[in-house]
């Protein structure tokens, strides 16, 4: 199908890229239908709202820059997206990109979890105090290297 995206304008996507968020995400509870798109640059992705082309979130796989990341979330949240097997559970962090793009941050405290098989997603909240909403990606990548 064809959708309007913030990053790429009008594009064609496959059904498997359509993800339903039954309760939206925090602050955007009315946005239930999204498309998961590869960004032009790995390892980023876009979570594009199908309702409003101007609303799209940059996502990154947290393990890419924090190999020690642990997804510690309530079992209920995993159940709410259909209890995916480990291989079908996708974990992403929403990225905030300020004026100076090198200072971009990732929200590790509120991960986005997606059941790749059922194409269901939600935003969860970490039970661990270790993660906050603003991890500076470049800094933490360099620290890990």
């Amino acid at each position, binding site marked *: 199908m064809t959708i309007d995206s*913030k*990053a*790429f304008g009008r594009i064609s996507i496959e059904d*498997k*890229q359509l993800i339903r968020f039954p309760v939206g*995400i*925090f*602050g*955007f509870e009315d946005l239930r239908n999204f498309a*998961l*798109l*590869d*960004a*032009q*640059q*790995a*390892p*980023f*992705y876009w979570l594009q709202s199908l309702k409003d082309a101007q*609303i*799209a*979130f*940059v996502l990154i*796989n947290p*393990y*890419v*820059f924090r*190999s020690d990341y642990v997804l510690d979330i*309530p*079992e*209920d949240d995993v159940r709410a997206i259909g209890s995916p097997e480990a291989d079908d559970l*996708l974990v992403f962090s*929403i*990225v*905030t*990109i300020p004026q100076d*793009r*090198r200072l*971009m941050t990732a*929200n590790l*405290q*509120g991960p986005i979890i997606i059941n*790749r098989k059922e194409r269901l997603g939600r*935003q969860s*909240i970490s039970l661990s105090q270790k993660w*906050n*909403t*603003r991890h500076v*990606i*470049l800094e933490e*990548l*360099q620290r890990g*290297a």
Partner: protein
Amino acid sequence: MLVLARKLDQRIMIGDNVEISVVEIKGDTVKLGIAAPRSVKVYRYEVYEAIQAENIEASRTPAGDLPDLGDLLPPDSGAKGS
């Protein structure tokens, strides 16, 4: 919003299985005890607010080139995605 005044050691029942008690009152701080099944999530409100605020901020990302993480990335960072 239902507003109830409680004294030290008094309790509130929410639904069938959530219990809140006033455990300690010290100066301007009230310590609350929350007894609930593991399936009921309990968070400090600031955490909700912070995540909501961060989502709103993140939604403002202009389209355009994303930073190139290049050589900093570990190998095989294509990872799970589409």
